[in-house]
């Protein structure tokens, strides 16, 4: 079977401009209206000051040098110097203001976005790689900022600058101005036409580069597999293809891109030549002055830059809108699990849990739980067993209200979990997940996550209770060992023990435990077992159990299969009943008998 590389699949190129989203985006400028106006005013002043140069040269040539007016020349110089220095202060102020505004806006956007993300339900995070979410918080927000601050202001400024130049030129000489602008349509056509092509070609270059990066990233991470399966030659072929793609795409872009300025240069030179050809006669006839002619060439020279940035603005806009779309997509995602407006705080939980005809599905045609009902008394230990995908995890997810039931009710101490606030509910539950996640920081910090205001002594006491204290103390830095640091990597079992301590510190009323399947070495295994026993003591608990000891010690075992509770009872009862449980059990341990 032929191997196709997923890395040559490009992402779609572009989408049409969406006006509504643009307006929504402008909304972010709202709080900065005054700043924006001030920055814009300052920018206009600076622009006008910059445009004074050629006119001053004209005045110098025509009025003072020709007349040998030394005093006038001194005044003119002073005025010019004053304008230059003035422009300096104005620019300083303007850049400071715009930076502050831009950064503040970025700050706010990131804050809004993060706050929103943090409150989204787990469905949002299921199957969405962290990298993608991060891109939106960092790159997309940055790209929006470029548009909203510098981009928009610049394009308006450039537009005004062009108009001012035209006005100045017309006021100096109408005929010469018209002459100068003969080539303008060609100029504009070339600029906008080329820009369009250039933009598309650079986009292809970016894609090819990102294909290469994604390929390399993955290839390096998976190099051991590649070498073990001797795929070096195959991979090199794919690599060479991608490498060539980059080169070809890059040169395709360069071919057009690098023609842009040389073409403008030629057009500009032709324009200058025209000014002189027409102007020479006019000067002889006394219709214009030498200074005017010089100023004209200067102003024409300044016409291109803003025109070029304006022609580029549309590109910037399209890029930013793509980012906007991604950011808004997140902001528009409503958290599926939220507090009701009249939600009350959950009173201290006693531990009575009831499933009342609960139905649940992620996709309508694939029911996960079908009419599940059970009652658990305070302090009871429940082991959930059953094949993968039977619905065990869903049951515990519903108790913690990570998802909402699609039918029926989940009651804790008689309260429907949907009627109480999420925070008051979850802060009384202890949830220990199979894939133990520790944050970077010290072991101390990680345990303390269970109770933020816990003292060091409380943290250590919790660690001792789950038998984690011994191995923690064996580290050079003890409780202050960084968990993510290279070298002091914790084993799977040790991480589990830390997460037990974390859960114990929170002192939950109901404990939910997804027992890890990952096998660990004997010594740690023993500690983990003792840790679990300690955690379960005196609490209502639900354990997705894999360990024999947990299953056998449970007050009640519920066998979940095909979205229903098929059997329920103690180990002995279920074995005697001779149903699914017994089959599961005997199939796994029958070899002992065959011994």
């Amino acid at each position, binding site marked *: 079977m032929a191997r196709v590389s997923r890395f040559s699949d490009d992402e779609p190129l572009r989408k049409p401009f969406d006006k509504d989203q643009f307006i929504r985006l402008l909304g972010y400028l709202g709080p900065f209206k005054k700043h924006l106006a001030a920055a814009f005013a300052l920018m206009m002043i600076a622009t006008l000051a910059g445009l004074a140069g050629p006119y001053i040269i004209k005045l110098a040539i025509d009025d003072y040098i020709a007349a040998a007016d030394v005093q006038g020349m001194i005044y003119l110089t002073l005025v010019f110097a004053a304008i230059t220095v003035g422009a300096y202060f104005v620019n300083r102020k303007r850049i400071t203001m715009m930076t502050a505004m831009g950064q503040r806006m970025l*700050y706010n956007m990131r804050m809004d976005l993060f706050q929103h993300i943090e409150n989204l339900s787990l469905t949002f995070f299921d199957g969405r790689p962290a990298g993608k979410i*991060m891109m939106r918080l960092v790159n997309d927000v940055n790209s929006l900022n470029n548009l909203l601050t510098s981009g928009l202001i610049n394009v308006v400024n450039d537009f005004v600058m062009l108009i001012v130049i035209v006005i100045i030129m017309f006021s100096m000489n109408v005929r010469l101005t018209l002459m100068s602008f003969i080539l303008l349509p060609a100029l504009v056509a070339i600029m906008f036409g080329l820009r369009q092509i250039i933009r598309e070609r650079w986009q292809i270059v970016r894609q090819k580069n990102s294909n290469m990066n994604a390929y390399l990233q993955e290839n390096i991470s998976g190099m051991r597999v590649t070498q073990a399966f001797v795929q070096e030659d195959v991979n090199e072929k794919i690599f060479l293809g991608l490498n060539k793609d980059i080169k070809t795409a890059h040169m395709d872009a*360069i071919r057009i891109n690098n023609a842009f300025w040389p073409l403008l240069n030629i057009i500009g030179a032709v324009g200058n030549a025209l000014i*002189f050809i027409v102007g020479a006669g006019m000067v002889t006839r006394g219709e214009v002055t030498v200074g005017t002619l010089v100023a004209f060439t200067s102003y024409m020279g300044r016409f291109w830059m803003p025109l070029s940035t304006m022609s580029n603005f549309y590109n910037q806009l399209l890029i930013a809108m793509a980012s906007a779309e991604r950011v808004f997509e997140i902001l528009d995602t409503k958290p599926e699990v939220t507090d009701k407006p009249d939600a009350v705080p959950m009173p201290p939980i006693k531990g009575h849990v009831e499933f009342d005809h609960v139905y649940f599905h992620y996709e309508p045609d694939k029911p996960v739980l079908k009419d599940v009902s059970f009652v658990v008394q305070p302090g009871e230990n429940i082991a959930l067993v059953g094949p993968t995908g039977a619905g065990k995890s869903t049951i515990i997810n519903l108790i913690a209200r990570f998802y909402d039931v699609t039918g029926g009710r989940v009651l804790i101490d008689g309260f429907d979990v949907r009627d109480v606030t999420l925070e008051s509910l979850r802060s009384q539950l202890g949830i220990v997940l199979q894939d133990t996640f520790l944050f970077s920081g010290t072991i101390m910090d990680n345990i303390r996550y269970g109770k933020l205001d816990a003292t060091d002594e409380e943290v250590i006491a919790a660690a001792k209770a789950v038998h984690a204290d011994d191995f923690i103390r064996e580290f050079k830095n003890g409780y202050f060992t960084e968990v993510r640091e290279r070298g002091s990597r914790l084993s799977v079992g040790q991480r589990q023990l830390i997460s037990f301590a974390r859960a114990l510190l929170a002192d939950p009323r109901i404990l939910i435990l997804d027992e890890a399947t990952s096998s660990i070495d004997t010594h740690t295994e023993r500690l983990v077992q003792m840790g679990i026993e300690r955690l379960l003591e005196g609490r209502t608990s639900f354990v997705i159990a894999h360990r024999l000891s947990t299953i056998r010690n449970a007050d009640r075992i519920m066998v979940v299969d095909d979205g229903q509770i098929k059997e329920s009872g103690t180990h002995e009862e279920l074995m005697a009943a001779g149903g699914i449980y017994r089959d599961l059990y005997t199939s796994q341990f029958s070899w002992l008998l065959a011994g």
Partner: protein
Amino acid sequence: MDIIKRLWTYIRPFKVQFILTTIVLLAAVGVGMINPYLIGLLIDRVIKGGQLHLLRLLTTGLVIASVVGSVLQYTHSYSFEDLSQKIVFSIRHDMYRHLQSASFSFYDEAHTGELMSRLTGDLEGVRSFMVGGFPTLISSMVTFIGVTAILFNMNTKLTLMCLSFSPLLAITAISFERKMERAHSDIRHQMAAFNRFIQENITGIRVVKAFAREKYEVERFRAENDEVYKKNMVAGLLRSRFGPLLELLSSMSVVALISYGGWLVMRGEITVGMMVAFNGYLWSLIWPMRNLGTLLDMVGWVISSGQRIFDLLDTDVAMPVKPDAYKPDKVRGDVRFENVTFRYGNDVVLEDINIDAPAGKKVAIMGATGAGKTSIVNLICRFYDPQKGRVLVDHVDVRDWDLKTLRRNVSVVMQETFLFSDTIANNIAYGNDNAPMDEIIAAAKAACAHDFIMEMPEGYNTVVGERGVGLSGGQKQRIAIARALLINAPILILDDATSNVDMETEHEIQQALKRLMTGRTTFIIAHRISAVKDADEIVILEKGRIVERGNHDQLLEMKGVYYDIFKDQYKGLVVEDITQELARDKEDGAVWLG
């Protein structure tokens, strides 16, 4: 300078193009200096002097100079891009080949992120020097010298006047660049911390939600966000301080030119046309100075990134292979460890290990984390070489084998499963490009992966990995098992292959594997008794040494380490003494579990 020499080895194949391009660049710089001069002449001779017959000549000259200049500019910029692409292409290729041949010990130390920045950022440093830094450096220098010469030729005093701002401009530009560099590096560090925070928060979102810590996390985010804001403000304020200052210093040169030039015109020392020409040339003087900081930065960049690239290329990373390496057509699968000692750094991982596994034997290895189990596997595939003793496959030292032939005959399921961003079918067929679909499916079935694959939206064509659908640890492991089974190699290694699979599925996989293992030499590394019990020989490692060996029954009789593990894992089953129970059950032949 060594870096430049090394870079030259990549340029050398395109020497002629490089030299011609540089000549074109110089020509373009030269032609670019014509226009202000022509404009000066136009003003003096034609417009003020009334020599209208020169008008056509000079304006034609203006246009021709521009056209020629533009063509030259296009030519050299295109050619430099082309050169840079060729060079980057071959450096990237060399780096990739180097990485592909690098041994496991290299990857033990290397961070993917760092290697990626060699391949992206550092390569970009080389590229941008070729298309930007180098041409700009040459043209700035030549322009500065050329224009200064032209101006001195026109008027010494005015030239000195215009140049007087240059040192100040240059110093300001350099100090700006230095400060900016520091500010940017602060921003980079802060952004890295910021990204890490988000990454971690999102990866651990279930923990955040389980402890209802959303508000706490938002506050921590705010602190990071504050820092990002502050660091960016530092850079922004630097820009607001220096940007306008550079502008001011440049503009002051123009002010100086007009006032002093104007005075000289009045005194008749220069003409108006010369003053206008001076004005035209002035930017050619100012611009190299303003750019000095950036230029130095670019040179610094290419030197440091070149250094890092060549350091990587110079590290000897490949496993040494003999020229007349053993390359048999058929491999039987005999594996033998003879007095093998393997050290990793200063740690002794394996000490004096002897294992004999003739073709078809099943060896299981158990032991605590860090006992050296995985190293045994790594030595068979020759991912590492032992310090003492030999590892023999088919009675030939693996160091005498052709590396690829050896590895093709060993299929491994590694402890850490890795799937590529590709379809499930292609992931299973990895290492076996031409496998027909029915074989892929058969392998998946044997690994108990078929059912969940069929439940995926696109079945075997579902794309997994970073760019595709996320799979659970157990699902990944099952695909990795299928991948290894498809290879059909005489030696099969399962390194903790079912650790993330639940017990029920593990049992199923083991049933399937039992069939597949027949006739193959198999090494099984596991923690669970259930996974190793059927092996011909079970080897217990402790701190790099074999402390117990034998089959399941023998080891249980020994009442040593294995027996303890057994007791622990079946604690729920065993009330008092498991052997007694077993003995009794064997006698009864009854289902005692009930």
